[in-house]
């Protein structure tokens, strides 16, 4: 049977991808950000899974206002990096895992989560920047990836509780897959940031660190936090953090082993947060 061994949480700031693509990672501005991922890259080499379920949001690239799925799972064989307006990132195409993705879709839909199934889409920085952070500059990504896109652009986004419960349904789905796969679930986006209006640039270190504490220790209670607290305390785009609850919900009920924790301000407009949790 397949099993979920670990979860990874990270911001997916586009400027981080640009810093890597343009060779700026050793500049004083960026060095502290990438130093926070040195452990993670080694951990990734030592703990390469068979498949990653990567929870992220599309930023008006694959989905315009024509079609806005709340939860969308990619069941395609591969995905191309999107041209977000600056030209596509020079990173490898993403290889999917259609069999496990379809299995998860069937299982969680039967558990009352009405996922949209996507067989053709480009993937934007929300998905490729976490891979770059964890794997470095690669000729090919180390394993297949199942994209799970969450709408956090058009309000209302799914609640924290809905995300948490979807994570639990994904756990059940993976555990019923009849092949011995090692699966990781990644939750991406956040932490506090606001990209719009006169309040742009908001950062809330205290709230972010409390979020990290609670994600580790009391995720079910954290899942009760309403949207308005996210947008008030963590900025309008800080609401991306609900996606971390999907990855956390996919973990076992036993307390996780915290392998790595990192927090840094700023990367462009954003607070960078990062955790690696292993199932015990």
């Amino acid at each position, binding site marked *: 049977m397949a099993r979920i061994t670990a979860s990874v949480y990270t911001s997916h700031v586009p400027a981080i991808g640009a810093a890597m693509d343009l060779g700026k990672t050793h500049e004083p501005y960026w060095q502290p950000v990438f130093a926070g991922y040195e452990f993670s890259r080694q951990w990734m080499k030592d703990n390469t899974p068979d498949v990653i379920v990567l929870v992220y949001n599309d930023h008006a690239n694959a989905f315009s206002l024509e079609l806005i799925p709340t939860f969308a799972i990619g069941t395609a064989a591969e995905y191309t990096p999107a*041209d977000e307006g600056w030209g596509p990132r020079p990173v490898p195409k993403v290889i999917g895992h259609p069999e496990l993705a379809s299995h998860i879709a069937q299982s969680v839909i039967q558990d009352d989560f009405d996922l949209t199934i996507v067989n053709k889409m480009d993937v934007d920085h929300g998905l490729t920047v976490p891979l770059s952070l964890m794997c470095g500059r690669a000729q090919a990504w180390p394993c297949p990836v199942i994209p799970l896109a969450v709408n956090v652009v058009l309000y209302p986004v799914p609640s924290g509780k809905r995300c948490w419960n979807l994570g639990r349904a994904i756990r059940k789905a993976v555990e019923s897959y009849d092949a011995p796969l090692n699966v990781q679930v990644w939750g991406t986006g956040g932490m506090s940031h606001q990209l*719009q209006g006169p309040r742009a640039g908001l950062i809330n270190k205290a709230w972010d660190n409390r979020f990290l504490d609670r994600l580790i220790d009391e995720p079910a209670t954290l899942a009760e936090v309403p949207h308005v607290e996210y947008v008030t305390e963590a900025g309008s785009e800080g609401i991306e953090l609900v996606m971390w609850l999907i990855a956390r919900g996919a973990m076992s009920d036993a307390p996780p082993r915290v392998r790595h924790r990192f927090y840094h301000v700023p990367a462009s407009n954003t607070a960078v947060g990062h955790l690696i949790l292993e199932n015990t």
Partner: protein
Amino acid sequence: MALQKPYLGLPGTTIFDAEQARKGYWLNQFCMSLMKADNRARFKADERKCLDEWPMTEEQKQAVLARDLNRCIAAGGNIYFLAKIGATDGKSFQQMAGSMTGMSEDEYRQMMVCGGRDPRWGRS
């Protein structure tokens, strides 16, 4: 019964909800067209002509021509869509976000390096 919108009182913030999305539909869809290199080149060659191909309001067109992102957002734009205009102009997200704050590019960058905007900003 009316929908609950507890986020309407947030200072300096416009939440992109169904009402904003309806208002900004064509503005945002125009922005999506800039994901293609050919359309970026056509827009740069004649901005007004390009905008006139879309059923946008005159206010939306003027806001785009002025690169006034606060006006674009008031007219229903969303930052992830509007970012395609910034990308066409060669601007970063930081330059775009900073342009809405009344600060200079350097002042905004410096604020971020020093830990960002205080989360209590504008709150009573």
